[in-house]
Every structure is written in structure tokens, then in C-alpha cells.
């Protein structure tokens, strides 16, 4: 076994942007390479699933898992990497809340396949459809089978940490790498299991420099419908549906700074059960009309409500995330210890794994059954025991 901590990164149902964001670390990547022994990273190195299967359980120290779970290959890898990893990180919006691939949850599989193989843009006279397995010349060819819904990583296996963003900002990735490094050195402790890394605890508005006033929205408009956007005033107050108020901070409010509304890629703030529900509740609350007819007219300004409120979070939402999202909401709640700080939040860590800290040495899938943390002031911080002896 190598003396360096072992790192893996994997790319399931995602666009690959997260891998690129990591590569964007530039010189810091060298630091990663020197600190970690990269054992599995299909985007940058050759590796076979069999190699991973051959590893002992919990032999990878940390796995950054990108992408949602759309097919049985994704699911297999999720379980495999869960078993082999001490810390499994849902990395990026796809793994943590489904992101753009998750929008397919609005369609049935037949509709999805039709869109790919049988619409007017497709030249497919024989109506060929993919088959999961095909025997040709005595060889069985297999492709993964699509799952009925795209699921987030934590709807499939327990997840230790989440790094949000589409993709996560490179600077934030650096912070995470630094934190993990320090934890390995014993100079920092990791936050409780279930925490979000590389982001803040409030919302984009917290980082946004625009001036904000009491909100009353008389009309929603698209950016393109506005001749001049006030450079200093809150976009929402200008009628532009900006998702900033409901979106976790950490990005530095880059979009609003560029006069583009926040679209919500950093996901919900701490403790929010359903991102879209929060956002639509907020928007509707400040609609400046009391009569149903007038309210309807104002809301007509939101052209695609589901797209507006669930662009990134549909697969983790209560409804289109399906039963898993609901059940997770239950588990999350049931596990919130009354009297602990987590219970003081109205919706404790819903949709994530329970907030007890991962103990690297005993971490394993069997430990992820929902359980209550001991009552106490804080869930215990994880003790990250450096693998292969203390550094230096």
C-alpha cells in the first residue's frame, strides 16, 4: 500500500465539466498529485473496473463522484466506490442533485428513447433501439440499461460530503483539497458527515453586491426583454427571476455580478428540503397582486416554472425525485436528534445522510444505516487518521 492517501474520481451521468473544473486547478493539480496517490480516474488515466473491484474494501481514502445515476453501470460503480472508499464525495450538481440530466425525470423512458431514436431529426428507418445485450459471433455485447429515473448519488448510496456547483468553482475545489490535506496532516478537522464542502451556509444574495430593497414584483421579465439593466440594483427587483435568494453561496455571485440572473447551480441552502418549493414560495410571496386574475398575469411572466425552479434540482426534488427523495426526507428527519443543533434547524439536513461524522477507520456501507447521533452539543468531528503514518 502506498504511503500517500489514495484518491479516486469518477464520472457517471454528467457532462464532464466537473473533471475539467478539477483539471482547471492548474498548478494546484501538481500539489494534488504529490499529496495523493490517484488510483482511479477514468478521465485522465487508464483504469479498469476490475482493478477497483480487486481493491480491498475501504482502501480508497477519498472518492470524488461526479454525475447522477442513470443506468445500471452508474449504479454498480456507485456501490463499488462506496464500498471501496472511506470518504465518498458527491462532487458537483449532477451527483448531488441531478442537474441537467435530471430534467429527463419529467419524461418517461419511452419519450427519452423516442427523442433519441424516433423523432423527425433522426434517420432511423428500421426503428432500431438499443438492446442491453446482444450476442454476435458467440460474443455477448452489453451496454448499460437505463434506469426509470435519474437518481442522485445519495439516493443510491450513503454519501459523506457534498461539493455543490455546476461545476464547482475551481477556487472552492482548491479550498476542499486544502482542507482534506490539512485534515490528513492533523491540522484541521473535517466537518460532520453530511456536510457541504466548498460552499457557504447562506445564499448567493450574501455574496451579491447589488443593492436590495423591500421586494414587490409587478412583472417578471426575461433579461432579453429589458433595455437597460440597472447595474447596481437587485435583479429580482427589476423583475428578472434571479434564483440567488434560494441558492447556496460559494460561487461568489458571479452571474448576478455580470447582470445575468442566478440559475441555481449551487443548490439549496442548508437545511432546505426542496429547492424549488422554497424558491417558488419566495417568488409568489412577493408578487404584487391580490386578485387571482392579476396574480396569474404576473406569474405568466415565468415562462417555464419547472425549468425556473428545478433546473438543477429536479432529481433531488420531492416530486420528480420520486419515492427515493421522499424516503430520504423521512430518513433525514427521523435521524435528526432532538436537542442537537441540527434539530434547531426546521428541516435538518434533509435529503442527505445523517449528520454524524465519518470515522475513517470504521467507515463502510453498513455504517450508513440511519442512526441517531448521541445527544450532545455537536455531532462529533471526524478524526482523520493519516494513512501510512504521520506526514513528515
Amino acid at each position, binding site marked *: 500500500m502506498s504511503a500517500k492517501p489514495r484518491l479516486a474520481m469518477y464520472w457517471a451521468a454528467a457532462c464532464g465539466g466537473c473533471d475539467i473544473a478539477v483539471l482547471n486547478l492548474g498548478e494546484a493539480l501538481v500539489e494534488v498529485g504529490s499529496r495523493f496517490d490517484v488510483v482511479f480516474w477514468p478521465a485522465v488515466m487508464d483504469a479498469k473496473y476490475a482493478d477497483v473491484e480487486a481493491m480491498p474494501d475501504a482502501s480508497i481514502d477519498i472518492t470524488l463522484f461526479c454525475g447522477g445515476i442513470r443506468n445500471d453501470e452508474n449504479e454498480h460503480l456507485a456501490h463499488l466506490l462506496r464500498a471501496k472508499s472511506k470518504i465518498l464525495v458527491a462532487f458537483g450538481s449532477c451527483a448531488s442533485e441531478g442537474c441537467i440530466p435530471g430534467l429527463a425525470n419529467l419524461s418517461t423512458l419511452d419519450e427519452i428513447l423516442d427523442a433519441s431514436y424516433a423523432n423527425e431529426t433522426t434517420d432511423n428507418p428500421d426503428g432500431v433501439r438499443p438492446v442491453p445485450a446482444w450476442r454476435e459471433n458467440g460474443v455477448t455485447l452489453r451496454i448499460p440499461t437505463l434506469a426509470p429515473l435519474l437518481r442522485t448519488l445519495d439516493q443510491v448510496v450513503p454519501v459523506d460530503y457534498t461539493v455543490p456547483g455546476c461545476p464547482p468553482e475551481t477556487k472552492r475545489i482548491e479550498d476542499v483539497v486544502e482542507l482534506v490535506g490539512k485534515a490528513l496532516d492533523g491540522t484541521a478537522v473535517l466537518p460532520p458527515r453530511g456536510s457541504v464542502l466548498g460552499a457557504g*451556509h*447562506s*445564499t*448567493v*444574495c*450574501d455574496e451579491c453586491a447589488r443593492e*436590495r*430593497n*423591500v*421586494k*414587490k414584483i409587478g412583472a417578471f421579465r426575461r433579461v432579453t426583454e429589458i433595455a437597460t439593466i440597472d447595474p447596481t440594483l437587485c435583479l*429580482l427587483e427589476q423583475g428578472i427571476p434571479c434564483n*440567488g*435568494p*434560494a441558492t447556496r*453561496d460559494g460561487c461568489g455571485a458571479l452571474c448576478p455580478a455580470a447582470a445575468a440572473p442566478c440559475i441555481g447551480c449551487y443548490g*439549496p*441552502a*442548508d*437545511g*432546505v*428540503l426542496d429547492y424549488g418549493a*422554497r*424558491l417558488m*414560495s*419566495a417568488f409568489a*410571496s*412577493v408578487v404584487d397582486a391580490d386578485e387571482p386574475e392579476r396574480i396569474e398575469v404576473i406569474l405568466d411572466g415565468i415562462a417555464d416554472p419547472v425549468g425556473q425552479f428545478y433546473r438543477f434540482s429536479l432529481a433531488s426534488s420531492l416530486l420528480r425525485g420520486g419515492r427515493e427523495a421522499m*424516503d430520504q*426526507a*423521512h430518513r433525514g*428527519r427521523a435521524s*435528526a*436528534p*432532538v436537542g442537537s443543533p441540527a*434539530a*434547531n*434547524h*426546521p*428541516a*435538518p439536513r434533509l435529503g442527505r445522510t445523517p449528520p454524524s461524522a465519518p470515522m475513517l477507520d470504521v467507515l463502510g456501507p453498513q455504517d450508513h444505516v440511519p442512526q*441517531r447521533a*448521541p*445527544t450532545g452539543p455537536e455531532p462529533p468531528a471526524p478524526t482523520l487518521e493519516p494513512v501510512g503514518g504521520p506526514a513528515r
Partner: protein
Amino acid sequence: MSASNLPAQPDGARERIGVYVCHCGSNIAATVDVEAVRDWSAEHLGDRGVVVARDYKFMCASTGQELIEQDIKELGLTRVVVAACSPHMHEKTFRGACRRAGLNPYLCELVSIREQDSWVHTDRTAATAKAEAIVAGGVYRVAHSEALEPFRVPIDPATLVVGGGIAGISAALEIADAGFPVHLVEREPSIGGHMAQFDKTFPTLDCAACILTPRMVTAGMHQNITLHTWSEVTDVAGYVGNFTVTIKHRARYVDTALCTGCGICQEKCPSKVVDTRYEAGLGYRKGVYTPFPQAVPKYPVIDVENCIYFEKGTCGACKKLCPTGAIDFDQKDEEVTVKVGNIIIATGFELFDARRVEQYGYGRMPNVFTSLEFERMSNAAGPTAGRIVLRDGVTEPKAVGIVHCVGSRDRNYNNYCSAICCMQSLKFAHLVREHTDATVYEFYIDIRAPGKAFDEFYQRVMEEGSVFVRGRVAAISDTVRLPDEEAHQGRLIVSVEDTLAGVQRRIPVDMVILSSGLEPATDAQEVARRFGITCSADGWVIERHPKLDPVATMTEGVFAAGCALGPRDIPASVANGAAAAARVLARIQEGELALEPIRATVDQERCSGCRICNDLCPYSAIVYHGWEQVSEVNPALCQGCGVCIAACPAGAISGSGFSDVQILSQIDGLLTALGGAPPGPAVEEREAVPA
């Protein structure tokens, strides 16, 4: 030690919950299988912490409550769920039982299987299943309840009474007599209200002025009462116990420090104005005036719209002739600020405008009068010195028609019964008979005389010879139509169906009195908004509870009395005023007030200052700190509606008593008590105890 602080159970995982299912005699047990609910709870809610489930004939009886107290002490319960009647009925009862046993009362949940189940359903199986779901909802919810302490605010001993009619005067006197300061605000130059305009009061025929003016004088001279007449409340800030009220004193142009109320200015003023307010348009007043001789305070006001000095800059007779030099044309409106702990709204009513019922011809036909006009006419101190005459001022009527329900009980105007018009109309009949020889017709739909000695008065008016025609007047006309009516040319013809005879009648009279209904003041909605109280669509103030809390409003610290609440007579208004005063006094005596601790709080760490919530609170309880860019809820102003909690996009606002996790858990219980999770492991001490 409160039981909520008991050491955690060995597994550290579970509350110890007791479930108590009430039979309510047969009210619940006849439709819900109470024993089955008890057994089901013990068996299936164990994994949720239920350690004991009992049923009992009457949980609210002292023996039932003792059962709970005993279990809290002996079984160490940390949460209690009672399945019985509506929380509006007995929540306080069971919370009290828990408190006596040392358990924080907010850890007790009363779920209704009576009003919301056994009483509205007939299918026993379905009602029992629903009861089980309701109990599960309560158990799931209570596990996440928190121990709460009532919110305490100090009470400023001063009280604001808005409206100087008989209700407001009564309230003010009660409080002032008890030794506490009162600010009495009246829009008119004098207190007294509508009662000051009346001649007699039904059914006793007391002289209204004789019984009212002593009270006005007492109020005016009371050391604890500060009168703010010719004044209006312009702003109310703060909250129960601690209101800051801004009162605008309109300029009187009379220096009250110098004025002796001698009346010379009124006497010498050359400007004569029709008095539409006090004399209801039947009489005159001067440009400088007190509304009536017994006015309190005695100081006149100058009506700038009808003052020659203000119109043309000439005259100034009052100023020249005032012996004390009290006339001050340069006076300005003034605003004063007072601090009060409680507020009583007694803003009264306005008369329905009878012009709106066009077929009755008021305003078009001179000898159609309103009830208020007749009150002034019959008043010995009024414009006709008590003579009942036609509009020409001399002719006595030979026949008088009194029309009931004008603008009341009518979907075209007001749906409600104005309550006082029947008795008022009977009083009019009596007065007409007393003053004239006229035939009196009472046109009525129903005679509503439910008060003390009311029906006796009705009998008396019948015995006096008034003619009662049961039928709502269709129209009043001043032109004859049929040949045999020629003799009545120039009189008024009342068209009515005599519903007892089943025939249409056209009855000639000389005078018609329209018994107009009562309406809220035209600015009632605005007043309501200013004081943060609620009005019905009609405009009457809504009581906190129409039966059990009839003088409190939905807003803490704001009470209401008299016709502001709806049409009522003088004794009811006086009783209201005293009742509101009693409520206020009880609070002043206590020194502080315990409020339900259902409040919203903002987690400052998670608030990003987006300001979505800022305008959502009708009580202005949410304040924004611009420097820190965070919002905060003032718990004393917060009424606990929870709108901001549901609106906060960051999930930064949470609510005690109705937290997200409580509500979501209740939904879980109601819908999936056993849908997802299998029943938990058996708990040894868990038991279902038969009654």
C-alpha cells in the same frame, strides 16, 4: 425539574410518549372503536416512542387528567398525546395537567377525533382508521415539539380609547375610576356620540341627554382622563403593552387655556350654517360653534369652511368680542404622542344613507325623513323644539308611516339586521302619538323585540293605537294614480303588500320616517388597518371569538366595544365598554402579559438579507438591518402566522410551535403511519391499558 429534561433513555433515541384516547361518553366511542385505537397506538407507534396508551371515558374530567399526571410522574413520560375533542375546546385543559405534573405544557398535543372524526362520519371502520391516522399524526408531531415558555411583555398602565360615544365613555370611566390613565380620542368637537342626538331611549323612554350628560361631564373632569376632542389617531406603532400612538389635534382656533365657554362668540358670529352633523340637517349652527349646549369640553371650534374670516379675511367678530381673547386664527394642527399599553376601539356607526333606496324618495320628497332627523325633531332641545311637523315647519301630520328595515336585511344593501330599528321605530310611533293625533302605520317584515322589556313596549305601542302593517314597503310616491286617490293629492302614498291580508295596499300618509339601518364608519377599513385589527367584509370589527371573546380583537392589546363591532343598542354598548375595560384592567393589574410562544425567528447566520420577507408581515415585525444585511423578527410584534417562514428562500426563518419538522412529521403520521417503516421492535414497558 421539568420532565422534558429527564435523562435521555438508554438508547438515547426515543421520547417516552403517552397516548390517551377519550371516549367522550359516547360522543367519540359510538363512532370510533376507542379500544382499537388504543391498541393500535400501543402496537404500531412503539417505534415512535409510545410507551403507554390508555383510553378513558372522559379524559377532561379531573380523574382523566390525573391519569396523565400520574403517568408523567411514574412512567417518566416526556411527551403526551391526547386524542379527544378539538384543541379549541380543551388544549388548555390538558396542557395544564402536564404543567401540574412538571412537564412543559407545549410538549402536550391534543388531536381531535371528535369534531373532525366521530361527529362528522358514520362508518365505524373508516372513522376508526382515520382516528388511528390522526393519533399517529399527533405522535409523530409531538416527538419534535419543543419545550416553550410563554412570551412575556410588560403592560403600560395607560389606555387609549378611540371614540367618545357612550361605549367609549363607559370604557374610559371604568378604567379611570380604577385609577389608571386614559386617553379618550374623539373626532368631533365634543364627546357624546350619537346618543347625544337622541331624545328618548327605548323601551324605558328615559331622556337620553339626562342620562348621558352627567357621564360626559364626569369623563371631561376626571383626573385620569385626557380628552383629545377634534382629534384623530394618525399612527399606531409598537405592540401590546407598549403602543406608541400619534394623535393629531386639529386646530380649534380657540385657545382652550383662555376660553371660558361663555358662548359670546357663537352668539355674535354672523355665519349661519346648516348643521348636517348634530342636527342631521334640520337645524343651523354658527361658523364658530359647540355642537350642543352640554358639549364636553365646552370649548367651541371654528369651522374654517364656513368662517367669513377664513374665507374673505374680514369679520373677526368673535375675536373682537371674546372677553378673554381666546380666539386664535393662527392656531395650527398639532401632533402629540402618547404611550399606552392597550387600545379600545369604540368608533361607532354611521346611519345608512337612505338616498340609496331610490323608491323611498328620501332627498326627493321633502316629507320623507330619516330616523336621525326624527330624533332631532322629537327632541325638545332640537330645531323644532319637539314639535312633530312636516318639512314646512308648521303642518302637523295626520298620518305617519314608519318604514322598517331601510338598507337592512337586504342583499342590495346590507344583509344584516341592524338590531335597533324595530325598537327605535316603536319608540317613534309612541312619540308621534304622544305629540300629535296622527294615525301611525308601522310597516315591518318581522318585529324583533328580544331585549328586556322590549316586547312589553311593543304591546304598549299597539295598545296606543298604532296600526301595524306586515309588509315591506315597496315604494313611496307623491303622485296619486287611481281615481279614488284624488282626495289624497299632495300626500305621500305608501305602496305595500299587506302580507297578512294578501292584498296590495296604497296607504296615504303625510310623513314617512325611514328607520335606516346602521353601517360601519366609512373609514372603518382604514381604521382597522391603522390599528392592525380585522374587519368583516361588512366593515364591522371581527371579535376574537364571537361568543367567548366578544370584545377582544384578533390583535393582542386591541379591544373593541359598541357599534364598532356591529349594530347594538345603548345597554349593550355600555356593557361592551365595561367589558373591554375589565379586560384591559386585568392586564394592567398583572403588569405583564404572557403571549403564546408561537413565533418566528431568523437564523442570522443563514439569512442573506435578500429582503423577500420584509414586506410580508402585516405587523411590521420584520426589521432589516442594512449594515449587517440581515433581517430580524421582533418577537413582541410577531403574531405567529408563519408566512415569512414559508417564504424564506434560504430556510433561515423557523417557527416555534409549528416548525417545519413538526408539520412534516404530522403529515408523515397522517399519511404513512405504517406505509413506509415496519412496526418498531417491541418495547417491554409499552402497554395498552384498558379503561
